[in-house]
């Protein structure tokens, strides 16, 4: 295991500390607001659930409630950015960017305004709300946009750092955060930079490329695989666009086997991004784990991860199978 990454000390314990990723965003935004008076926040009637209330309470004059109107959320944000503000616009990812993608494309991306889009309640951790609210297509949608960075932190600690980095980033950005508690993987000392991928566990046999909450599952899988005698490398990809091809190719050229794991549609998501990279630069046996061209459903996050085959156990089996198949 890599020590330079300063991962959480209790990471491999059964009672690992957990917290909703969105809480890290809320703290990061409050801190960004303290550091820079141009930071403003907008919300579409979901102030507390998107954790923007911390900022709104401290800086009421810099908080704008647009009501249940996500298209306006994006256009008003672009107008604020035009005047030198750094707008963080937040709603559920299902609605922003789910509903206002074209507004984001035109008024933030083509128009080159640094609107910061926060997609809360993304992925399966939205749980009981069901398919309509479990946004699984956001990575694909946002990855297709020029002038847009796509950031998917693995825990609340990284989300806080990502939020602060976004406030200093010149372009429009998308930050994907989840509703329910998930294990805290990193610490304040773990490095984070927009556009960088990080080797969270070193190994020579297979590369597990993970993003968001799946990075924890990949690390747990690597731990199991180690006991199986398989040395898995875990590459955490908190920025899906721009993709850190250097770090990924370095790992893949060594291990020659790749599994991508994400809590999102594999079509257009991290799996696609890695497939594109490998296809052009280092064709390598690849398995994409994630949501496979279907919608979610109601349930507790743990039940859903089990149902969709996105637990450490599933990753371990997939890795063992891949190595067996390719060594026959």
């Amino acid at each position, binding site marked *: 295991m890599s020590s330079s990454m300063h991962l959480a000390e209790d990471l491999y314990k059964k009672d690992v500390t957990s917290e909703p990723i969105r809480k890290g965003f809320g703290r990061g935004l409050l801190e960004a607001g303290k550091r820079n008076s141009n930071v*403003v926040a907008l919300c579409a009637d979901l102030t507390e659930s998107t954790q923007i209330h911390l900022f709104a309470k401290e800086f009421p*004059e810099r908080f704008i409630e647009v009501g249940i*109107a996500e298209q*306006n959320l994006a*256009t008003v944000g672009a*107008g604020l950015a*035009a*005047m030198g*503000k750094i707008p963080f616009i937040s709603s559920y990812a299902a609605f922003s960017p789910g509903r206002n993608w074209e507004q984001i494309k035109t008024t933030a991306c083509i128009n080159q305004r640094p609107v910061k889009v926060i997609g809360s309640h993304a992925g399966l951790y939205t749980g009981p709300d069901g398919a309509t609210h479990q946004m699984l297509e956001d990575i694909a949608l946002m990855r297709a946009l020029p002038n847009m960075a796509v950031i998917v932190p693995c825990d609340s600690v990284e989300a806080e750092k990502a939020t602060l980095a976004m406030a200093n980033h010149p372009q429009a950005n998308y930050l994907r955060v989840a509703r329910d508690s998930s294990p805290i993987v990193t610490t304040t000392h773990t490095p984070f930079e927009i556009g960088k991928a990080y080797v969270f566990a070193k190994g020579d046999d297979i590369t597990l490329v993970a993003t968001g909450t799946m990075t924890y599952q990949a690390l747990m899988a690597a731990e199991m695989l180690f006991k199986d005698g398989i040395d898995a490398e875990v590459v955490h990809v908190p920025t899906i666009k721009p993709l850190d091809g250097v770090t990924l190719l370095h790992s893949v050229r060594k291990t020659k086997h790749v599994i991508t794991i994400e809590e999102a549609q594999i079509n257009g998501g991290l799996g696609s991004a890695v497939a594109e990279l490998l296809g052009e630069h280092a064709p390598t046996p690849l398995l994409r784990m994630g949501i496979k061209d279907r919608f979610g459903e109601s349930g507790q996050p743990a039940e859903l991860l089990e149902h969709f085959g996105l637990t450490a156990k599933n990753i371990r089996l997939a890795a063992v199978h891949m190595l067996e198949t390719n060594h026959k």
Partner: protein
Amino acid sequence: MVKKMSIKELEKKAYDVRIDIIKMLEHAGNGHSAGPLDLADMMTALYFDVLKHDPKKPDWDERDLFIMSNGHCAPVLYAVMAHAGYFDKKELMTLRRFGSRLQGHPERTSLPGLETTSGPLGEGLGQAAGMALAMKMDQQSHRWIYCMMGDGELNEGNIWESAMLVAKYKLSNVIGIVDRNNIQIDGTTEYVMPLEDLKGKWESFGWHVIEIDGHNIEAFIDACAMARAIVEKPVVIIAHTIPGKGVDYMEYDYHWHGIAVGIADVAGAPPKHDQAAVALRELRSLKGKITGDHE
């Protein structure tokens, strides 16, 4: 700064702008005709009288902001900007061509003086609102933000989301202008998606409404002054216009919403190879004789 003109001079200038629009569209071989022609009077008034701006300093931080939410009317925006001195008039003939700064729909980053990128409808008023909110935070609300919208554009829900927000935050330095020309691509507005009672709609959204003849330059300048004087509510100017204004065979005919002169034979119009020449002859002969004929 732009030299102030008399109403007579502005009216003449509007016809020069129309002539350029026809030439630009003929040269480009595609683009929208009706809206740009009917906006020529108000756009001329904006850039030569109403707006506080400086073509030599497009980033001047005391300028008023003009947003063309109905981006398909770009030809008239480019034409008045060139006449005002933002760039050389010769460049007008590059409209819609590869490598041109005059993109088919206005693209902010390609041409100094544009405040937004537009084309996809319904997005200007929200950006105007965001700009006004920022000005409020920075005690800059003495600057005015004019947002031009098409009437067909008012089909878009985003417009009404923005209308509610502008009223909620009392952003009275936002002035809306609706080009009420009664047409959109598929037909008349009342056939495609009825807008009336349009005045009542805006009023019920918390706006003060001023209705004018959009070809009466003096009335438009007065309406803008009145809009700036009303501070309790945001103001929208519903400007009644004649689509294709100035070219007889285009006037009132929705077929000219989305096409340029010279590319298709249209019932009631000259054959396509003659359309531009007929339009130009008509516009030139109307010079100086148009005062008050639509009141």
